[in-house]
């Protein structure tokens, strides 16, 4: 079997084409957002919000409202509750996050267990890439494009917010509003990614690409290109591998991202554990040769 056949064969199935498109879109949007999340230190917040949207999605399913609406409401509820618990008790923020998101996630699981026609909803937890319908794809495309467009258009403000909110305030911007915008986009993006890898693994797509890109460059503008490119490539590779090895597709995508992170962590010429030593040894050798 030659390479072309390997690449083209899965594309003869409509469900594979839909799976590839959905994952690629989700991967790109998540990756762009992840650049800010890892720099602000909001990884745990990403974890929390992506889990906390579950009851919102289930309730939206029950009443027939758009998933994104339910997710957005519960994302904001989660963030508010975390803030309230942190500010009005002696409980620290990480504990507050842990309490709120696990409770909301559990509420979602309970709601699923009492909702008839459980098949669709269980897929939200672990993802169901190969079962993405045409309607799902349309929703992912619309939400993905909206989130992506806002992120790209407001990227300079978001970076300023991440780097120096005090300066943002001093020149008349509202750090509070920018923070809220970022959280809203986090909720929206979570919904996009739910379809593909499921609630449990969304956080991987929201953290790993940004962290990987951060190890590769000193320029934020380049992170915004590197992260989505790596993420999209990992997604496509993950799906092909899962097709031929018959493994869980969402998990395979995350595994591919984790593997690339590990390679970069070890071999990045700027930051990598081994890469920096190799570069040093090369410089030494060059100096020795020059003598």
């Amino acid at each position: 079997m030659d390479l072309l056949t390997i690449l083209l064969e899965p594309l003869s199935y409509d469900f594979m084409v839909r799976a590839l498109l959905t994952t690629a879109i989700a991967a790109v949007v998540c990756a762009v957002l992840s650049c800010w999340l890892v720099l602000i230190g909001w990884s745990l917040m990403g974890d929390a919000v992506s889990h906390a949207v579950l009851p919102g999605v289930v309730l939206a399913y029950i009443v027939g409202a758009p998933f994104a609406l339910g997710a957005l409401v519960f994302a904001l509820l989660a963030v508010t509750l975390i803030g309230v618990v942190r500010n009005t008790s002696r409980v620290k923020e990480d504990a507050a996050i842990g309490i709120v998101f696990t409770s909301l996630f559990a509420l979602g699981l309970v709601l699923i267990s009492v909702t008839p026609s459980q098949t669709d909803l269980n897929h939200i937890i672990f993802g169901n890439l190969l079962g993405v319908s045409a309607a799902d794809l349309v929703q992912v495309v619309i939400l993905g494009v909206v989130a992506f467009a806002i992120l790209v258009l407001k990227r300079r403000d978001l970076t300023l917010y991440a780097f120096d909110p005090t300066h943002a305030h001093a020149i008349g911007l509202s750090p509070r509003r920018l923070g809220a915008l970022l959280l809203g986009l986090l909720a929206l993006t979570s919904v996009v990614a739910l379809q593909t890898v499921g609630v449990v693994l969304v956080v991987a797509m929201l953290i790993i690409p940004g962290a990987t890109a951060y190890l590769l460059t000193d320029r934020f503008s380049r992170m915004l290109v590197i992260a989505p490119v790596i993420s999209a490539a990992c997604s496509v590779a993950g799906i092909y591998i899962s097709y031929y090895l018959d493994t869980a597709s969402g998990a395979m995508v995350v595994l591919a991202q984790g593997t690339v992170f590990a390679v970069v962590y070890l071999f990045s010429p700027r930051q990598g554990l081994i890469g920096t030593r190799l570069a040093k040894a090369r410089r030494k050798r060059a100096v020795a040769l020059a003598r």
Partner: protein
Amino acid sequence: MSTPAILVDKVTVHYGDVLALDSASLSLEPARICGLVGMNGSGKSTLFKAIMGMVKPDSGQVLVNGQPPVKMRKEAGIGYVPQSEDVDWAFPLSVRDVVMMGRYGHLGFTRRPRKADRDAVDHALERVELSDYADRQIGQLSGGQKKRAFVARGIAQGATMMLLDEPFAGVDKRSEATITRLLRELAADGATILVSTHDLHALPQLCDEAALLMRKVLMHGSPDVVLQPENLAMAFGLDVMNRG
């Protein structure tokens, strides 16, 4: 008398149960450099935040050029140089990127810079003598260069008022002299500058006046009077006298 550039009038601020400022008052004329001296926890940062309109006083009022701080914010008139601990130096931005952020208040919805903005950034970098370092990642500068990068941001912003939080912490003697000269030039051009510091020996060269802060402004006047040992003892406790 002209309108003060900064007027802090009996401002009191609480954080929860903690009293940060207790009826503090300070008036600063335009184009002057004032050194704000006080211990950690004396309310220096809170006073800065009140001037920038980031904290609302429980009582009293702040006027910047005779108007509420919100007006000055809209004009992007206040430049802020944060203390080193408050900056993420590993953030993947170049010196030029950071200075460009000074222009954001003047830019449109997506903050896409125009030629005039790039020129303003180049000029600001030249002014603080960092043109050769423009493309370095900000963490790869020396302590003094880092401070100058943020001063450049204020210059690019066109700030007529600069607030500097501990600009001499972690800065070597030569950079300290460079920063002092730079700030004196900016004041000569009409900028009003408020500097918080507990580096007392740098104050007389830099400042036209000094103020002692200990939740309220204990004393405000010329540096050589304010910095008399018996006055410092009041702000710092007797400890400093015994050590110094």
